[in-house]
Structures are given as structure tokens and as C-alpha cells.
């Protein structure tokens, strides 16, 4: 029974509890619904979030690897380019160095060579000095020559004077003008007078006669030997006799002997010359003898022969020699 009571109480209490529980639950049903929704939404969100984050992570991984890949490719490219540029810069710098050196060298050697110019200018200065020295020496030489000539002229003038004043020389009895007894030594003119040999002056042909036909004197530059002062000319022709050139004997043509040779032979070897001595009329005698021989031997003698014998001295000489042999025998 107890259990029945319990069950009856439970049966009566049951709807009350049910109602009570329902009413309680009803109070909180909304809220619990909301809460449950919330929890469910939250959980779903979590699931989705987890899914999304998973996706994100995977996407990130993909993007990461992809970006790394492309970036590395790009960097590799950049590195290549930078390397290339670095190399080019290096080359260019080296090329610039070479060109710089070359251009400097070329300019300095060929276009504007400072040392060549310097040595050229030094050379010019040296040449100038050389020429100056040479010209100075030349001038000295020329001046010496001129002085020499002047001295010679002076001396000639003095000699001429001495020759003209020869009569003033001092004699034993009477001292001359230049040899005054009050002087310690004779004047130089006196000494000259003593040295100089007297020459008879020859007179020039008077100039006036030569003029009209000859060379007019204002225009007379054409004397080939015309020297400056007139007295040199007169001294030349007055003081010395006109010297004739030696008579040059004309040489004989042919193989004749010298004039003295035959005489020498005659003196030295008189025996040999005997045969050559001939008489005055020897020629005529020889000719007569020949003619007689001819008349004797003539058979086919032409009229020309005797004349030939007359004119041909060589054959005549031969005939003479034959005659001498005949005479000797």
C-alpha cells in the first residue's frame, strides 16, 4: 500500500509537478531557446570559423609559397640585372680608364706635344745663337779683309808717292827733305824712298781723244774692270811699263823634231851625221840621176810619174837614201 499511495500521490502530484515544471520551464523556455540558439549559432560559427580559418591558413600557405616563388624569381631577375649592371659599370669604368689614358697619350704625343714644343723652341733659340755667332765671325772676317785691302791700298799709295818723289832722296852730300839732320832717325818716307826702285812713268793716251767714238763717260759703268778711285788706274798704267806677253811660238804640226834636237845629235854623234850632210846642189843632182835612170828603164812609164817624184818628199827621201848607199858602196 505504501507504494500505492506513493503512486497515487505521484499521480496527483504528477500533473502538478508537470504543470509546475512546465510552467517553470515555460518561463525559461524563451530564454533557454535563445540561449540554445545562441549556443548553436556560436557553435556553428565556431565550426565555420574553424573552417574559414582552416581555409585561410591554407590559402595563406598557397599565397605564401606562390609569393615566395614569384618574389624569388623576381629577385633572381633583379640580381641578374644588378649583376649585369655592375659588370657593365665595371667595364665602362675600365673602358673609361683606357680611353682616358689613350686620349691623354694621343693628345700629349701627337696633337700638342709639350716636350716636342719645348725642345723645338730650345732648338730655335740654339739655332739663333749659332747663326748669330757665325754671322759675327763672318763680319769679323770681312772687316779684317777690308782692313787688309785698305792697308794694301795705303801702302801702294805710299809706294806710288815714293816713286814720284824719288828725286827727294838724300845723297851723300846733301840730306834730303825727309832726312833732316835734326831728326834722330830718318822719316819713314826717306826709308821708302831708299827702298823703292825707280820706274819711268809712261804717259796715258789723252782721254779726250777717245770720247766721241768711244764709250761716253757718264754712262761708263761698263768698264769691266772699273774700280772706284781714278788714281789706281793711272798708277797702274803710269808707273810700270806695259808688259808684253811672251811670244808663244806656234807649234809645228806633224812629226818634226824640236829645233835643238838635231844640233844635239850633230854635236854628240858626229859620225852618224856624216851621211846626212849633203851639198847645196845635192837635190838637183839626185833629180838628174833619177831622170837618167828613168829614161834608161822606161817602158811603160806614164807622163805623171816624174811629177809625182818631184812632189812626194817621202819617196824622194827614199831615193836619196838609196843614193847614199850607192855612194857608200
Amino acid at each position, binding site marked *: 500500500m505504501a507504494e500505492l499511495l506513493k503512486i497515487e500521490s505521484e499521480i496527483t502530484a504528477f500533473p502538478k509537478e508537470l504543470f509546475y515544471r512546465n510552467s517553470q520551464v515555460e518561463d525559461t523556455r524563451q530564454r533557454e531557446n535563445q540561449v540554445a540558439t545562441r549556443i548553436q549559432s556560436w557553435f556553428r560559427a565556431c565550426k565555420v570559423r574553424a573552417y574559414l580559418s582552416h581555409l585561410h591558413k591554407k590559402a595563406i600557405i598557397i599565397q605564401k609559397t606562390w609569393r615566395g616563388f614569384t618574389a624569388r624569381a623576381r629577385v633572381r631577375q633583379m640580381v641578374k640585372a644588378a649583376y649585369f649592371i655592375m659588370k657593365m659599370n665595371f667595364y665602362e669604368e675600365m673602358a673609361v680608364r683606357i680611353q682616358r689614358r689613350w686620349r691623354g697619350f694621343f693628345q700629349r704625343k701627337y696633337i700638342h706635344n709639350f716636350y716636342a*714644343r719645348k725642345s*723645338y*723652341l730650345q732648338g*730655335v*733659340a740654339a*739655332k*739663333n*745663337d*749659332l*747663326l*748669330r755667332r*757665325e*754671322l759675327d765671325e*763672318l*763680319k769679323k772676317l*770681312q772687316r779684317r779683309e*777690308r782692313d787688309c785691302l785698305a792697308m794694301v791700298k795705303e801702302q801702294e799709295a805710299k809706294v806710288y808717292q815714293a816713286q814720284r818723289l824719288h828725286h827727294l832722296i838724300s845723297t851723300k852730300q846733301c840730306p834730303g827733305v825727309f832726312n833732316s839732320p835734326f831728326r834722330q832717325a830718318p822719316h819713314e818716307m826717306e826709308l821708302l824712298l831708299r827702298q823703292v826702285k825707280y820706274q819711268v812713268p809712261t804717259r796715258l793716251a789723252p782721254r779726250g781723244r777717245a770720247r*766721241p*767714238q*768711244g*764709250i*761716253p763717260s*757718264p*754712262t761708263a*759703268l*761698263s768698264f*769691266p774692270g772699273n774700280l772706284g778711285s781714278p788714281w789706281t788706274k793711272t798708277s797702274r798704267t803710269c808707273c810700270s811699263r806695259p808688259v808684253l806677253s811672251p811670244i808663244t811660238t806656234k807649234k809645228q804640226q806633224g812629226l818634226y823634231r824640236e829645233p835643238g834636237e838635231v844640233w844635239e845629235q850633230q854635236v854628240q854623234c858626229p859620225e852618224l851625221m856624216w851621211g846626212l850632210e849633203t851639198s847645196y846642189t845635192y837635190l838637183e843632182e839626185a833629180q838628174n840621176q833619177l831622170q837618167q835612170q828613168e829614161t834608161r828603164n822606161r817602158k811603160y812609164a806614164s807622163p805623171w810619174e816624174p811629177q809625182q817624184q818631184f812632189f812626194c818628199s817621202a819617196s824622194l827621201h827614199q831615193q836619196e837614201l838609196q843614193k847614199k848607199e850607192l855612194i857608200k858602196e
Partner: protein
Amino acid sequence: MMSQRQIIQGVMSMLRPLLLDVVPNIQQTAALALGRLADHSDDLAEAVVKEDILPQLVQSLASQNRFYKKAAAFVLRAVAKHSPELAQAVVACGGVDALVLCLEEFDPGVKEAATWALGYIARHNAMLSQSVVDAGAVPLLVLCLLEPEIALKRIAASTLSDICKHTPELAQTVVDTGAIAHLAQMILNPDAKLKRQVFSALSQISKHSVNLAEMVIEAEIFPAALTSLRDQDEYVRKNVATLMREVVKHSPELSQVIINYGALSGVIDYVNDCRGNLRLPGIMMLGYLAAHSENLAMAVIISKGVPQLALCLSEESEHHIKAATVWSIGQIGQHTPEHAKAVATAHLLPKLLELYMDASSSEDLQAKSKKALKSILQKCTYVPGLEPLLYDAPSNILKHVVCQFSKVLPHDSKARRLFVTSGGLKKVQEIEAEPGSALQEHINAINNCFPEELVRYYTPGYSEALLERLDNYQLA
């Protein structure tokens, strides 16, 4: 009283029939008398021409003996020497052909007289020279050069020189007959007058063109001709200098050839020794040399050409010689700052300025000195040389001077100090220039090189400005 003209006519008409006299002596004396009369003055020579004596003379030239030929040639020469018209009259009556026939004679006196006459005819102008050349005189003249008589050589050289001097074609004709070689052989002849004519002939040939000058040089005249620079006779020296000038003016290569023989010292000594007009060829030669290139100008400077030219400038009084000297100096100094410095150290810039400013200088001299001054100033960076010019120069020169200062002063501190202490800065402040003009820009450039206070100190009127400030100053 008979007038002089009537006397002359009477004399001429009396002498004329004597030319046809039977006795040869009388003919010759009559011709000689005519020659001397014509030689004396050009009236008489005209009278000779008017009386128709020349055709007679020319006709009888062909047939007579050598004394007559000499006298007749003398008459022709005496007539031709006075003026071109008289020479033309001589040519018109066939005188040139007759004279050329005389050149073929054996007697040297006749040849000399004929050559002399041809020389006087050819001297006047190119046309007459051409007529002489057309008559075939040139080969005969060259043959005359080879004759042993010195007088004949002289006259032949002088005639060739007169023919060559007019035009290049005539000179070429003479050269084609081989005259240069013969002339070159006679350079070392001891006779002074012959050398004069030879050098004169060579210089007339070489003056026309580069080719002719090269041909003259190829005859190897130098260095033998340089010995004649110290000859006794001054005209020989002058003609050698003229020859060198004519050769040098054509091209730098020819100048190099001459310089390599040391000709510079010869020329400078020559300019030193002589005076007056004789110096002119030497001075002009230096100018032409320097004009070609800067190393030739430097060679002139090294051979102490610039002090010599300064001496010439101070000694000579004639304007044309001064003008030539000024031109030469300008050519030397215009190349680089080194050259300009060499000119400035010889104190030539103030002298050039003085010549430019002097009212009594001729126009030519003024123009040349201005040009020379400008060209030297544009290259001059030698500050002590530029300073004296600040004071007296007119504005057109001053702007160049100030321009040069503005180029030099920014870089050289010692020069700046010198500029201030010598009063140059003060002078620059006193210059009035229009704002915006180049002069003002240069002045500003100079002022920028110095501190502000210094510039203000030297501005004119600074002391008054300071005193004004003092008046307005109130003690606080």
C-alpha cells in the same frame, strides 16, 4: 727773249738732222746729246717724242755700229724713265723689238744699255711689262745674267725684278725660263749692288703666290742668304729682309723652313741695327710669322722679338712704321695668355693705349692699335699688366679690361689682395656703368669676390654716407 720751250724746240730740230749725218762720230754724239737732254727732265723727253725722233732712232738701231746702238739705247731709256705715257710712246714706235734685237749683240755695253732701257720701260705698269715680255726679252735677259760682266748682271737682275713685280703671270713667265737657278747662284757674289738686285728680283718673284715662294726656297737660297744680313751695304740687308718677309707671309711651313736656319736672330739683329724705313721689312716679317700659329709666335718671343719691337715703337717717329710695329705686336700677343703676358711684361699695353688715344696719330695707326689692344686684352690674365689700363682707358677698352679682371680675380687670392692694395678696387667702384650692360655684370662679378664691407668701404661717397648716419644717430 726766247722762251725755254722755243729753245728746246730749236735744239731738237737742230739735233734731228744730225742723227742722219754721214760721219758716224757726229751721229753718235748727236744721239748722246739727245739722250742727256731727255735724261734731264720730262719736258725735254716729251719734246723728243713729239719731234718724231724716236722712230728714226729705232730704225737706225738695227743697222748701225755698237757705239751708235749704245747711244740710241741711252736715248730710249732716258725718255722711258719719266712716266708711263712716255714709255708707251717708246713701245709704240717699236722700241721694244729693236731693244730686244740689241740684246742679241755680242758687245756687253750694248746689251747693258738695251737691258737698262727695257728695265725702265717695264718698271711703270703691268701692261708695259707684258709688252716687254711679249717681245721675247726674258730668255735673252736670263742669258745676260750669265755673262761675266758684273754691270750687265746687275742690270739684267734689276730688269727681271721690274718685270716680275707686277703680276703673278709675269713672274711665272720669268720663272719658266729658269731664272731662279741663275739668280740663286749669284747670291754669294762679292759685289754689293749685284746682290741688291738679285735679292730684289727674288723677293718680287716670291711675293705673288705660295708656289712661286716654294720654288724660290727650293733653289736652296737659305742659309746662304742669311750671311748677307750682315752685309756692309744697307740695301742688300733690306732686300734680304724683304725676301724673307715675302716668303714667310704665305704659309706656316715656309716660315718653319726659314726659322729652322736661325733666321730669327738675324732679323732681330737687323732690326736693331738699322733705322727708319729700312726696319719695315724686318718688323713686318715678325708680324707675318707670328700671325700663322702660336708656336711660331712663341719662337718670336723666345728670340727676344718683343723687347726689340718695343724699342722700335719708342724710337721711330713715322706713323706707318709705328702702325706696322703695332700690328706685329698684336699678332704676337693674340694667341694665348702666355703670349699676352710676354707682351704685357714689356709694358706695351699702356703704350698701345697711348697711341690709340693720341689725337695726332694717323687713322691707320689708331685703328691698328685699337685692334691690337683688343686682341691682346682678350687673352691677357697678367694682373699687374692690366692694372695701369684701368685708369686712362676709354669705355670700349675698359670693358675688356674689367672682363679680364672678372675672370682672373675669383680664382686667385693673391691677385685679389694685390688688386685691393693697389687701388684697383677703388677704381672699379668709380666706374659708372649702365645697369644691365656687360660692364655692369663684370663689375658685379668682381664685387662678389670681395666681402661686403670692403666693397662698401671703397664706394665713392661712403664717407658722406657714414657722416649722415652719424647725424641721424640718437643716443639711446
